[in-house]
């Protein structure tokens, strides 16, 4: 066991896997010598050489396309898109090629690869360093979508993603790279060191894809969250003194529907929390699923707490961010009747 923050855990996952499997190649903008703008790939080029970890041209479509060719050859690319806000130029290759390859060829060609990208707000990153585009990928059949919320999961899920036979979009909540965030931006940042989830095995282990994590058991309502919002939701529940069950989804596709159903059927109430804009965000799918499957157990309509339907502003960041106050309001509503 070692104590790791999320960056260290992600870095460690790369190293463990690259040592085990020499077909893994890592590339992306600035990931080589420098080790990435968030330093997630630090030391990889040194240890594994320039042909297994290297800088790519600033061409997200090219990075994704080249990964397709490499996967077709038999390698396993683990690529970094520097910020999720810059994934759109690669969208065609991801949606039209990577996601559909296994299907369109009836598994003659498959696309095992991981597309890592830091996402989410709360860092004064403005419109183009703050976005949460996960629902644009959950809509695309053929992709798995994974979002860790702590160092232990980050490493275990990333290893599972690398070992997965299908393409995985792996969004990393950059706000909590260095420590969890309770949503109170005016309080000092806590480092991961003090937390149990920062105890991470140094070697190989996995956290299985498709399995949610009940991070807090409770009877009064079910809270569904992922990434940074797991911590914000947990804190809000503590503060409200409510016996909430908080589920960290960890994988959005395929979803752990069983965990969700069981919980909501038990509590009869459900609150969904995410940073992405509300309209057609992943919360919509969660809300629809919960209602479809637990309607007769629901004592109140499912509530969504989300980012607003505006671009992510630079100032008024905390008006945009779904923080404790917004969660509290929704909680009052979902607990009302």
């Amino acid at each position, binding site marked *: 066991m070692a104590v790791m923050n999320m960056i260290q855990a992600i870095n460690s996952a790369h190293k463990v896997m690259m040592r085990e499997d020499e077909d893994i190649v890592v590339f992306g903008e600035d990931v080589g010598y420098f080790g990435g703008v968030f330093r997630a790939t630090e030391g990889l080029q040194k240890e594994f050489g320039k042909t297994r970890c290297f800088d790519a041209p600033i061409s997200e479509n090219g990075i994704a396309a*080249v990964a397709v060719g490499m996967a*077709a050859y038999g390698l396993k690319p683990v690529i970094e898109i520097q910020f999720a806000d810059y994934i759109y130029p690669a969208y*065609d290759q991801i949606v039209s090629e990577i996601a559909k390859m296994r299907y*369109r060829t009836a598994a*003659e060609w498959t696309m095992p690869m991981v597309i890592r990208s830091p996402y989410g707000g709360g860092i004064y990153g403005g419109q183009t360093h703050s976005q949460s585009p996960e629902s644009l990928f959950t809509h695309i059949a053929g992709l798995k979508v994974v979002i860790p919320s702590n160092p232990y999961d980050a490493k275990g899920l990333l290893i599972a993603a690398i070992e997965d036979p299908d393409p995985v979009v792996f969004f990393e909540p950059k706000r909590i790279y260095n420590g969890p965030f309770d949503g109170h931006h005016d309080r000092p940042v806590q480092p991961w060191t003090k937390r149990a989830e920062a105890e991470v095995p140094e070697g190989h282990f996995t956290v299985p894809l498709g399995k949610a994590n009940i991070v807090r058991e409770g009877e009064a309502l079910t809270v569904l969250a992922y990434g940074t919002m797991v911590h914000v939701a947990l804190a809000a529940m503590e503060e409200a003194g409510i016996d909430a069950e908080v589920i960290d989804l960890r994988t959005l596709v395929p979803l752990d529907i069983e965990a969700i159903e069981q919980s909501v059927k038990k509590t009869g109430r459900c609150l969904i929390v995410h940073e992405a804009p509300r309209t057609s965000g992943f919360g919509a799918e969660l809300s629809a699923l919960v209602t479809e499957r637990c309607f007769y157990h629901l004592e109140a309509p499912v509530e969504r707490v989300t980012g607003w339907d505006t671009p992510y502003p630079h100032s008024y960041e905390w008006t945009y961010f779904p923080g404790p106050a917004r969660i509290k309001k929704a909680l009052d509503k979902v607990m009302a009747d």
Partner: protein
Amino acid sequence: MARSEKRPNRPALALHVPEPPARPGEKPDYSHIEVPAAGEAPRPDALCAAEETHPLTTHLVRVLDDNDDAVGPWDPRLSAEVLRKIYRDMVTVRVFDDRMYRAQRQGKTSFYMKCTGEEAIATSAAAAMHDEDIHFPTYRQQGLLVSRGYPLVKMMCQIYSNAGDHMKGRQLPIMYSDKEKGFFSISGNLATQYPQAVGWAMASAIKGDSRIAMGWIGDGATAEGDFHAALTFASVYQAPVILATVNNQWAISSFSGIAGAEQATFASRAVGYGIAGLRVDGNDALAVYAAVNWAAERARSNKGPTLIEFFTYRAEGHSTSDDPSGYRPKEAGEMWPLGDPVERLRRHLVKLDEWDEDREAALLEETSATVRAAQKEAEKLGVLSEQGDEGKETMFEDVYAEMPWHIAEQRDAALKEGE
């Protein structure tokens, strides 16, 4: 928004919108096309500095001359056997195309695309590469499969989306794929395969392998961002890849000027990436062979990528959904100065005394018979128009390696739908 009157003393700007030399009702006009004599282009060493090839990007590598002789330094000096193999493949492609076009017209399937007039390119390129090398084709390279001996019946099963289609009918007709034959899955999204080919080649280099890749694109599709990604990555990492641009001068109804051909050749794009570039008579099977062979040697020697423009003409419609008489003169194909690739190679073989009328008649008969037999066999496995819904549960497979719960639920629902 009115024109700015701020500086009335300056000349008015004007937008240039490229227009092909002739539209329906006008006489086809090829006066803008320069056709250098065969044998004129110099042939630098395959391991030369990339710049040495750059004069060739505005020239045209041609081997077969007007007397049907093979001339000049690019003559690949192929044996009669190889020439006849290429010729046979070209004829097979043409017969196959005609047959499948008709099958579509008969309503047996939804769609078809011919490569009429461009047969030399894929068949000769395949002949010039090794069978272990991989192609990332677009949709007019059926000649690659034919050359590599892929069963025609399998191609037809794909076209019919029938029980013999190993892709389970998932793809539009002619979007073939065969891993065994080194033929990557064709995409309906233009240009995506071009940088993918570069990625495969990079992988081969990373692994210290010796196999190279060839990517294919049309003139129109060069405008996509993926074209630039391919050239950028190929140049930066000096990937062992051949990037072929098939300039058949049309992209559905848009002539190649809309992709930039008025101002520069497609081959000359190589200059700005510092890679080798060649412009080749695509209707000259020998020139095609020679160029691909040159580029393959270069790639295998770690000298990096080559961009090859094959200059040709799309002699027929874009696809079964297209009628070119709506946007270009009807006789445009016949008057095209580089001639028909099949005829040109036949005349060369005749000139070499390696072909004659009897052999021609025999080949045509044989090819027709082979294609007809294949069609019969394929149709036994079904045609799209008569497809029922047995096997429909397969529609839910292969989205992921393991079927997740939500797709399993959907499959179960679909199977109950008829009830």
